[in-house]
């Protein structure tokens, strides 16, 4: 059973409670680094928290009765997915919980007559269609190495996954770019697409519903980077450094590419993702055959 005297028992609980805070700080670092890359000063790192508190205090304009429920659902399911990661549960279940969280957001956006909101929701579906298969294939290749789909199983495996699955790690970069809503694949909700999209999938949220959606987004960023830190699982300090390196790479990509259309997004993610992961698995099998 659970040993309540061992302080390490409480680490996952603390992590889950802190997940939105970690994500919020990451978004603050993101805005600061982006500003520095554009030779601007940039806002303080705590800026996302000011934004969320302000949004919480604004007059709510509710587009439909179900919209607030779905906004809370987006945050709730994202946090549940983070809890699955922190408690070392099944990776497949984690991916499906993430998908449910995203679906909450999409249904909420479809639940109004706004053209921009509907367009954003459709593009978010396309984004899901692009990254979900790659994410699933990455999970399958991890299970191929460790023998099961559990996050705990990665910790029992002594060799760092990055040394065995380097190409799978690379294939996760477009997945991160899409899910963090960064250029060139920020087709569903860009913060810079005023004329074309307004705010895409976020258009119809306002006040506290938007604050909840923001919290959900921060949690997802923390979740994805936490998932990437598993690639050096035995030593989580190096794993975290690895996740930060990836975060920086995504920011560099964000600042050097314009937004591309959804066809390019699907093609790039599928072709690059599938080829890299398949090459990785084929290479592993070939090595097994040659050395046995």
């Amino acid at each position, binding site marked *: 059973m659970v040993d309540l005297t061992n302080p390490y028992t409480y680490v996952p609980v603390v992590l889950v409670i802190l997940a939105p805070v970690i994500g919020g700080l990451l978004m603050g670092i993101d805005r600061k680094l982006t*500003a520095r890359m554009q030779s601007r000063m940039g806002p303080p790192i705590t800026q996302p928290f000011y934004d969320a508190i302000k949004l919480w205090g604004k007059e*709510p304009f509710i587009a439909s009765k179900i919209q607030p429920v779905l906004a809370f659902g987006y945050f709730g399911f994202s946090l549940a997915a983070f809890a699955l990661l922190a408690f070392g549960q099944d990776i497949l279940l984690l991916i499906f919980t993430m998908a449910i969280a995203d679906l909450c957001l999409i249904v909420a956006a479809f639940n109004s007559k706004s053209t921009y909101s509907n367009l954003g929701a459709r593009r978010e579906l396309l984004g899901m269609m692009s990254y979900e298969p790659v994410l699933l294939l990455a999970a399958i290749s991890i299970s191929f190495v460790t023998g099961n789909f559990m996050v705990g199983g990665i910790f029992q495996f002594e060799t760092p996954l990055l040394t065995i699955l380097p190409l799978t790690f690379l294939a996760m970069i477009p997945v991160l770019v899409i899910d963090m809503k960064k250029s060139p694949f920020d087709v569903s909700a860009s913060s810079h697409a005023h004329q074309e999209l307004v705010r895409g999938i976020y258009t119809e949220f306002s006040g506290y519903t938007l604050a909840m959606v923001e919290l959900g987004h921060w949690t997802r960023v923390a979740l994805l980077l936490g998932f990437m830190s598993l690639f050096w699982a035995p030593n989580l300090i190096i794993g975290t450094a690895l996740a930060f390196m990836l975060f920086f790479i995504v920011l560099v990509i964000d600042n050097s590419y314009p937004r591309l259309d959804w066809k390019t997004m699907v093609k790039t993610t599928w072709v690059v993702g599938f080829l890299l992961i398949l090459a990785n698995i084929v290479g592993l099998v070939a090595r097994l055959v040659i050395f046995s």
Partner: protein
Amino acid sequence: MKTMTKARLKSPWVLHFDCGSCNGCDIEILAALTPKFDVERFGIVNIGDPKHADVLLVTGPANKRNQRVLKNLFDQMPQPKAVIAIGECACSGAIFHNCPNTLGGVDNVIPVDVYVPGCAARPESIVDGVVLALQKLQKVSEGEKVD
């Protein structure tokens, strides 16, 4: 200062609407976002969605064709909010005074809180105008009556 008031002062998201200006003031507003002035260091973000915005920046004289759009945008912004008229045209109609197709200043359509004069208004004075609008938001947030 209460947390909510502080958060409101730290993150004013602005919505920019051009109702028939010559683009001089619009270019100066965008100049405020560039590295030289960088208003994002105060948390000011130019946002495209009235439902997320706190401050409405209007340039150009209101006219009969776009007054409906301007009114609609203003109504879609949730409280607390502030309106800034930027440039001579938005303040009073300026060179369009008595033109049959214009309505004069923006304050003939929606209530304006801060007037930023200038043709075109300079980025420094625009940033100054936003700071003045924040004082209004602070008063509203602390529960004072503002007219």
